[in-house]
């Protein structure tokens, strides 16, 4: 009897493992086996400096390498390949939206808002190639991004409706066990999901889930819902890695200045040159 029971539970465990592996999420996270250290108020501690380590900012879907925008900069700024972060690799565009996406892709090296140092929106801010810092308290969780001083305040006390649309949206957060769930609304239609023209409307609604999977790695998932652009919700997921170096720090990347010549160069007085002091 004992042996049979043991082999039953073993079978169940193996089945869970199999299902978990097929879905692409490691069994450890699936079973929520990792219990993160707690903050003083008893919540999973997400404080730290984090960064994605993938090619999602170039293209959130699986993609091969391709030429960049500049012959002169050649390999430095070619588009690197990536296996994609979209679950199922399919973005369910509505027909009209798909046409727009194709246009965006064709004009990506001109139309990507990141080129002008515009705010990246959610979820793109979390997989930019720059670190961001989470500062966590009972009242609020601040996410401060190195890119363009972008910042999000997640209200942890009282969920409220976005009073107005913004680039970085309006974030309400709560805990579900080991997971921080952030509900983001009030996003405007001006950001892209990546440098390849994947985009959305102002009906975008993002639900994020942040779960520690080991001391220095977090699982980040975002469910995208936008009935004006997509036929159904879809999901991205990726790990976020902790910057463990002792001198890790969010530094100043005020890229607005680097976009000035692009934005206003045609309006400058003839004979004057680009700003020699940019970034100093």
């Amino acid at each position: 009897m004992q042996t049979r029971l043991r082999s039953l539970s073993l079978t169940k465990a193996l089945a869970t493992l199999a299902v978990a592996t097929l879905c692409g999420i490691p069994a450890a996270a699936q079973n929520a086996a990792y219990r993160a250290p707690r903050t003083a108020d008893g919540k999973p501690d997400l404080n730290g400096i984090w960064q994605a380590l993938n090619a999602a900012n170039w293209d959130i879907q699986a993609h091969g390498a391709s030429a960049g925008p500049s012959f002169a900069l050649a390999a430095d700024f070619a588009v690197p390949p990536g296996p994609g972060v979209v679950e199922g690799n399919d973005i369910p565009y509505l027909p009209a939206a798909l046409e727009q996406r194709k246009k965006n892709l064709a004009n990506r090296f001109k139309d990507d808002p990141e080129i002008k140092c515009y705010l990246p929106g959610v979820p793109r801010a979390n997989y930019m190639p720059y670190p961001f810092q989470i500062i966590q308290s009972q009242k609020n969780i601040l996410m401060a991004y190195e890119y363009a001083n972008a910042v999000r305040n997640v209200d942890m006390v009282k969920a409220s409706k976005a009073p107005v649309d913004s680039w970085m949206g309006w974030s309400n957060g709560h805990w579900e066990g080991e997971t921080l769930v952030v509900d983001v609304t009030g996003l405007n239609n001006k950001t892209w999901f990546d440098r390849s023209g994947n985009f959305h409307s102002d009906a975008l609604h993002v639900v994020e889930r942040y779960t520690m999977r080991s001391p220095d790695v977090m699982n980040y998932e975002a469910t995208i819902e936008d009935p004006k652009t997509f036929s159904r919700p879809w999901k991205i997921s990726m790990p976020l890695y902790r910057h463990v170096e002792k001198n890790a720090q969010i530094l100043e990347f005020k890229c607005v200045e680097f976009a000035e010549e692009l934005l206003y160069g045609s309006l400058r007085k003839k004979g004057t040159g680009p700003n020699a002091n940019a970034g100093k």
Partner: protein
Amino acid sequence: MSNRLIASAIALTGLVAVSALAQTQSKPALLAKEGASKTAAAPKTPEGVPDLSGFYTTSTTVPFERPKDLGAKEFFTPEEAAAYTKKSLAAKAPTGPGTYADVHYDMAQFGLEKDQNKVGTSIRTSIVTGPEGRVPPQLPAARQRAAAKQAANRGHEFDGPENRGLPEQCIYWNGAPPMTSGGYNSNIQISQGKGYVAITSEMIHETRIIPTDNSAHLPSSMKMLLGDGRGHWEGDTLVIDTTNFSDRSSFRGSDENLHVVERISRANADTLKYEFTVTDPTVWEKSWSGEMPLAKIDGPLFEYACTEGNYGMPNNLSGARADEAKGKVPNGRAALGE
């Protein structure tokens, strides 16, 4: 409690948050004398450090420098302070040619006037502390450098974006220390997490992230508009030491040798006490200090997407090019009577 006792109790740190909208003045809290322990009153975070978190305005009716006619008077009486605040909030905006009123840029319709919002008040006669209450004069070499910079830009104010100034370029507004009373939406958010305090300025959504471990500054070759801040707790006070400034934010003529030390503590449930000391040996002979109240506001901060909506820059530059095409020297300031 006798009036004299009240007066002496608040004379040293009489800080009050006033909501002009409420039409009443909140009673000045009977604050402990300097040196007395404030630990009993100061709330703490779960980590056990003072809780300074929340939303505040740096907007205050206290002038940065002491009006000349007040001479060496560093403090008002509570009654004088109340009268000064009232007068300050009731002051009408200038209405001559080229002023905001003249071009119908009515701040009041957006709820941006000082008398429509929370302001911090104090019995101090100026933010700059000390017997003079004024910023010390710049050293001659510094004045020469400033004059040379101004001269270099004269006639070139509209050449290109780099001549317009960091705010119009949407690069930098006022996020660097020391915090000063800005114009409208002069709001900040203080967030606290394990080992860090973050101060976010609403315009232009800049966040200073301060580790509270008193760690070493970045190498001196790293220069940032917001500087590099390192903090630690001294009892109930957060002390922030900031260096590594770029010379481009230039607080009151300072350059990259600027060194700012701030002290932030809770004055009462509605107000933080904010003190700063400014040192720049190539600009001022000695350090000078300031103190101002940070009044609690409801918050939250709203997004100020500056460059995303920067119409001012292309309009000013193209206007200048249009002037030049007509043979006129572009000089927007002349229209404002400057």
